[in-house]
């Protein structure tokens, strides 16, 4: 090959490159059997928990994942394909994403979904940027009951372009303070954002909130997708943008990543929307096919005027979501949502009986906050040693609450495991 190229050595191909190093200070490569041992050793230094003994949610949830999900998603023609730049040999990807978009529209009650964002937090951040593009305004009213990490990420994203985020407090119901909302709303307000259910697990009254917000203010809802099988779709209440984290739809916890951000909106806003969109079309013989559409919004064409810089996204996780939703269907997802709801309420009652008072009195979905003893954090570590991933203490983030923990239950918890938790927490 060198001869064909007309050079004498490989080094000749690198004449332009300043030789600043001669190789790396990195050990030599290893065969796969040795590598396997090394990585397995690291894996053994982690502790994994039986899902039924996990009571930790806070944005990442353990759910039953049907066996087929993993099997189908493992197909190398999904795993090792790239962005469908050549649509004719990417119909698998494109149709899958089109169907994913449809499912997310259905869950949220919205008209358009993109084909994925990095995670719930970056989706949230992008929704605020989009609100500014829609309204030309820079003031955001953001509920303090939105996931704290989402709000941190949003601040990181929005600060450079001058967006100002004002927080909306919560009441003893555990939901957004409507009086404060009324007071802070003004002509400068671009958007109001709440979570549904919120970080504490409580169900915001979207109807009441929307009724307070003028039509030209963008209404953003951060939704937990499993809950939407039980709760009315935000689209029905006049949301402009509904976003969230899709991990709970068939994705393992993965130490928090990869998950997936979903992003939905209304057709009238679509040209302000970030991310990739797949649309239906026909081929020259009239056969239905799918392609990327509205790419003029995107960075590779519109460059600095793009609606976002996102390019690589989480398409593979969208596949997992789509397979999961296909297996579960409307009935299965509702069963999951209802069991999660019911388990959380059973657990709340048991914990209350055991002396762990609920801090909020509103209606919650599958999480809620309880008062805990001052030394709870130690107990939490202790429980982990014994195979229970208990409710996470949240008083470092919500200092105003005092000693408190966020309790989570999903359909994977059992009566037995919940009774056990109550018993262990009492000690």
């Amino acid at each position, binding site marked *: 090959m060198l001869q064909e*190229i007309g050079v004498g050595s490989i080094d000749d191909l690198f004449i332009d490159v300043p030789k600043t190093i001669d190789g790396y200070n990195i050990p030599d490569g290893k065969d796969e059997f040795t590598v396997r041992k090394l990585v397995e050793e690291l894996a053994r230094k982690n502790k994994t928990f039986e899902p039924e003994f996990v009571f930790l949610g806070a944005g990442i949830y353990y759910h039953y994942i049907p066996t087929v999900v993993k099997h189908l998603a493992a197909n190398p023609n999904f795993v090792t394909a*790239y962005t469908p730049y050549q649509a004719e*040999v990417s119909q698998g990807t494109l149709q899958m994403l089109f169907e994913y978009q449809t499912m997310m529209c259905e869950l949220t009650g919205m008209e358009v979904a993109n*084909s994925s964002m990095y995670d719930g937090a970056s989706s949230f951040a992008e929704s605020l940027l989009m609100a500014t593009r829609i309204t030309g305004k820079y003031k955001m009213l953001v509920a303090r009951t939105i996931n704290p990490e989402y709000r941190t990420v949003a601040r990181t994203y929005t600060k450079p372009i001058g967006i100002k985020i004002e927080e909306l407090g919560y009441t003893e119901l555990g939901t957004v303070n409507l009086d404060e909302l009324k007071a802070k709303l003004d002509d400068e307000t671009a958007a109001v954002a709440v979570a549904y259910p919120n970080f504490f697990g409580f169900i915001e009254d979207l109807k009441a909130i929307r009724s307070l917000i003028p039509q030209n203010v963008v209404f953003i809802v951060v939704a937990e997708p499993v809950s939407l099988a039980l709760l009315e779709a935000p689209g029905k209440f006049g949301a402009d943008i509904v976003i969230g984290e899709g991990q709970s739809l068939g994705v393992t916890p993965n130490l928090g990543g990869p998950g997936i951000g979903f992003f939905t909106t209304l057709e009238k806003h679509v040209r302000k929307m970030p991310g990739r969109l797949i649309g239906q079309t026909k081929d020259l013989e009239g056969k239905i096919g799918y392609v990327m559409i509205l790419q003029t919004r995107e960075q590779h064409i519109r460059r600095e005027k793009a609606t976002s810089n996102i390019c690589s996204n989480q398409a593979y996780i969208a596949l997992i979501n789509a397979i999961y939703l296909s297996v579960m269907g409307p009935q299965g997802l509702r069963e999951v949502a209802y069991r999660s709801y019911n388990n959380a309420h059973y657990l709340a009652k048991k914990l209350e009986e055991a002396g762990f008072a609920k801090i909020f009195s509103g209606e919650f979905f599958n999480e809620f906050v309880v008062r805990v003893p001052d030394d709870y954090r130690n107990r939490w570590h202790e429980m982990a040693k014994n195979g229970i991933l208990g409710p996470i203490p949240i008083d470092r983030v919500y200092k105003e609450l005092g000693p408190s923990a966020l309790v989570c239950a999903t359909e994977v918890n059992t009566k037995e495991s919940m009774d056990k938790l109550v018993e262990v927490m009492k000690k």
Partner: protein
Amino acid sequence: MTIFERSKPGRKGYELPAYDVPDSGCNVPEHLLRKDPPMLPEVSEVDVVRHYTNLALKNYSVDRGFYPLGSCTMKYNPKINEDMAMLFTQLHPFQPRETIEGAVQLMGHLKELLCEITGTDDMTLQPAAGAHGELTGLLIARAYFEDIGELEKRKKVIVPDSAHGTNPASAAMAGFEVIEIKSGPDGCVDLEELKKHLDDTVAVIMLTNPNTLGLFEKDILTIAKMAHDVGALLYYDGANLNAIMGRTRPGDMGFDIVHLNLHKTFSTPHGMGGPGSGPIGVKARLAPYLPVPVVRKSGEKYELDYNLPKSIGMVRTFYGNFLVLVKAYTYILTMGGKGLKHVSDMAVLNANYLRVKLSKTFKIAYDRICMHEFVIDNEEFAKKTGVKTLDIAKRLLDYGLHAPTIYFPLIVHEAMMIEPTETESKQTLDTFVEAMERIAKEAQENPQLVKGAPYTTPVRRLDDVSATKYPVFRFKR
């Protein structure tokens, strides 16, 4: 057929375990309860299996064949990476710190390896993709200039016209003004042009090196000096790192901020468009601005440092796409230091071989020794034959190959940007050359044949234009 058309009311593909928790009743206010169930598929397990199995059959992939997308580095993804990632799927990001010791250690070790590879002093693994890393890097630059009191005056980011589209978009998101500068006649940054725009209003110069023409910016040390002389920072777009491993490091060339695409250089699969991972390495003076948490060595152990008061905050939740990190880590262990150098050697060798072979039939935009990729300029070819780059790309699909990146970089008209990667054999490269030569011949003898391509794919050529003009965003009954 869509999965929705396979659906039949009442059919189901799941079963949950028996349930014995007493029913507490549902207290959700009526108006907040869902009335109409979402129209999700109602299908059996076998329906689901067949649907997705048949969709997969309609995809081209690296596991099927050659995928020479320029600047995308579609190398082979070793299967062991997947197995290793599977060992870490059950961890909750908020588990007690002491129960994720192995995961933290892996991130810590990976960070050190990547710092060694990039020649940087510190790094965040949090960004989920290349563009996400770019944004992170620019936010770090912004925080730095704010901290040293220069943000008011430094509003500009300089980007060559050959840069990836994400560069200007990221700069804009970070609140900077984008200055595009034209490349010189040799395809590299034009130093005169750069000088014209370079002063103390410039915050950052973003470069891809080798650039998107596959050419190494040979004046890079001069450019670095020019940037630093006016107090600007130099940003490295890591999309093309696969060309230079083991010979030089961005940090050594003077770059202050370096992004990596683990899904390119470090062999993690592309997953139809993601998840990727875009770590950002920085020189020591920029470390205080990294997003939290930063993994740091503390004695023999690694810790998660959240205590960075000057940090830009976070760019996503938790630790980024952690499973992607596991795959990249596995790859680096497998290749080792020498192996990574060999990767670049072979990537560049393959690209040059292809370039020389194809130069006999096609015009190479800058026909000199290239790095890991090069660009064909089909402008004359199209004028002569009426067959455009798009047609050639579609015709390649009929030959069972994926097409190169087309119409990029924008500075070459009718461009075809070809990156073979190091994992392809000479045999595969020869097959590609042969297909290209046959298509060139077809274009002369029977241009309509090429313009009508593809013929053998699951669908024929698709109508993009009306798809955007009359968009159908979702399936409707």
